[in-house]
């Protein structure tokens, strides 16, 4: 086993270990009723945001492309999950919530994946800022379309209508009602399923990153032209990362959507994509463990500091700018390195081997 491999193994073990330990502690707190309502209510959303952050990190940190429409995939997952769960209940009278939840999550992931392919084919031909703006455009288009989508169920059949609600046959039970969003969802998401989903996400992402494909993806990020001339098919590997991220975001969306009694298009705006982007940037581009920690921390923090809510976005903005300047400006980077020289070994250990740490190149 080479040194690099060993370090990677340690990093992966630490990541999994932390997630599992956190889960065990929380489960014990729940069974001992030693947890506030407020924290308990946030567990499932936190799971969903962790998956969102890790999957977006796959696109931004590892393949080096900025996607600004990640919330779009989440909304596809959330809507699909709500529809599938509602349909299974009405058409097949499937009472088992766990089975419904699992099927809904799978469906959400698959549909988001299909959209990922459809969007990825044109988008990934572009690069840099263009790609960012086009993913933004797709996110907005998805939201625009969902806004005029009507889905109802009657006698075990699903009915779809677009733009015109009146086209639905009379007497259907609405599942998706245009601007009113997905309605009358029976909340069935559980923290346990969220935890399993995080584990699956970690397994998929860490394996992909450390595989041959993952090395190719990172090579295209670091130097596209060099990678291309070595025979790496840039588009193929970027597609792989993009679609995987879309599937994971779809699954997270289904989990998130089925945690609430209703889901609306305005929950998945451009701002939500930016929110996830903040998780990723603060956790460190390419750093999976960092994404998990920052997603958790930044979801809980505003709740703990409810009275300072007015300044939350302001602080986010400032932090985003400062982090970017400090990690990317040569002078400040040298300065930070000098400050951290005693701890330098540790820093290097943490980011040098995993995936390039905070470097964006």
């Amino acid at each position: 086993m080479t040194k690099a491999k060993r370090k990677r193994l340690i990093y992966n073990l630490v990541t999994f270990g932390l997630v599992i330990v956190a889960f065990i502690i929380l489960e014990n707190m729940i069974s001992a009723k030693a947890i506030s309502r407020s924290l308990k209510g946030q567990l499932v959303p936190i799971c969903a945001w962790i998956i969102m952050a890790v999957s977006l990190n796959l696109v931004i940190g590892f393949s080096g492309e900025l996607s600004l429409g990640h919330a779009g995939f989440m909304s596809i997952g959330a809507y699909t999950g709500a529809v599938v769960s509602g349909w299974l209940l009405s058409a097949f009278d499937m009472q088992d919530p766990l089975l419904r939840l699992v099927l809904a999550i799978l469906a959400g992931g698959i549909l988001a994946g299909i959209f990922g392919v459809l969007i990825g084919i044109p988008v990934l031909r572009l690069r840099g800022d263009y790609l960012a703006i086009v993913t933004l455009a797709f996110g907005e288009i998805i939201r625009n379309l969902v806004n005029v989508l009507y889905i109802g169920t009657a006698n075990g059949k699903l009915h779809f209508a677009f733009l015109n609600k009146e086209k639905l046959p009379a007497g259907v039970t609405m599942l998706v009602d245009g601007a009113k969003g997905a309605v009358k969802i029976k909340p069935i998401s559980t923290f346990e399923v969220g935890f399993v989903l995080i584990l699956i996400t970690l397994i998929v992402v860490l394996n992909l990153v450390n595989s041959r494909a993952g090395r190719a993806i990172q090579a295209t990020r670091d130097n596209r032209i060099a990678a291309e001339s070595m025979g790496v098919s840039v588009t193929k590997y970027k597609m792989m990362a993009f679609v995987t991220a879309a599937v994971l975001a779809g699954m997270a969306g289904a989990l998130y959507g089925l945690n609430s009694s209703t889901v609306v298009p305005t929950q998945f705006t451009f701002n939500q994509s930016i929110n996830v982007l903040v998780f990723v940037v603060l956790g460190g581009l390419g750093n999976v463990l960092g994404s998990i920690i920052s997603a958790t921390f930044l979801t809980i923090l505003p709740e703990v500091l409810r009275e300072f809510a007015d300044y939350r976005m302001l602080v986010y903005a400032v932090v985003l700018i400062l982090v970017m300047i400090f990690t990317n400006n040569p002078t400040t980077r040298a300065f930070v390195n000098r400050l951290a020289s005693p701890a330098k070994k540790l820093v290097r250990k943490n980011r040098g081997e995993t995936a390039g740490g905070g470097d964006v190149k």
Partner: protein
Amino acid sequence: MKKLIALALALVLALTVCSAFAEEPITLKIAHIGPLTGPAALYGIATSRGAQIAVDEINAAGGKYKIELIDEDDEHNVEKVINAYNAALDAGAQMILGSTTSKPCEAAGAQGYTDRVFFLTPSASSTAVIEDKDNVFQVCFTDPNQGAASAEYIAEHKLGTKIAVIYNNADVYSTGIRDTFVEKAPGLGLEIVSEETFTDETTDFTVQVGKAQEAGAEIVFLPMYYTPASLILKTAADKNYKPIFFGVDGMDGILSVEGFDTSLAEGVMLLTPFVATSEDAKVANFVKLYEDKFGETPIQFAADAYDGIYILVAAAEKAGITADTTPEEACDLLIAAMKEIQVDGITGSMTWDESGAVTKTPMAATIENGVYVFK
């Protein structure tokens, strides 16, 4: 030492007895939930402030109840509202005044239905807010109710028969009113000649207004909040198009937008249960208190929340809620009490039925010379 302890004990005892005789007011913990930040902050801040005025009044008057108001922010977000709701219960709230906006209220109300927590929403008006939930009641009209009332008013007063509708298809409130209006209109001899939509980000209304003009609409029905409405009025003025603009309660507030040219709103009609310029003594008192405290004119949301606090207190009194009543116990008691009380508030005289919807009479106002006039 022993003596000292005995003395202290006696003192404590004496104090407790005294206080029992002086009838300490019962402390009622009410949580207001609404968007205090984010895109809908305008409405949440209004309900929060309206509720605060009522709480100040009640506490100063020193009646049976003393109210402790807990203010929680839901950012007009379906996820955050659950956090706000949980935080409110963690803080000891016994009942909830909220949420201000429809979708968050729908989500939190459903959670409250499972947990058995009582909700009175000042302003969340969609039917989904109260549907299938016995624990949620409204201070405001439901959207279908407003849509129907508007259509009936237009038909009854023969304002015109050719109607154009412009509505926000990304907004629950707007689509809710539009749906019943469009459904009711044909039966009342009204013809919908044009129907156009917009979304929250729309700034350009030339197409929507142009189509209404081209279709020769005599009335343009605007089921929306006042922000887009003010843009539509401006666009129509530019186009020299002068139909009757008919609005709903969300239109209230248009006259107090800073910098708004009120001449654009001349002749606009709207159905609303509350206008700040009313001469009614109760309303005038509320408006004055509000203006003194917050330096701005209250919108209808603030009035709804003000009434909401009084309704909660009336219901709590009827139900015999005490400081020790848990939210779960309070829920069923309050549900029963709501059906029995009648409250004369600044938004009208109100009663409730099982569904949770309110019964009160809307008033039609016309804007003349920059102020509302009732006919």
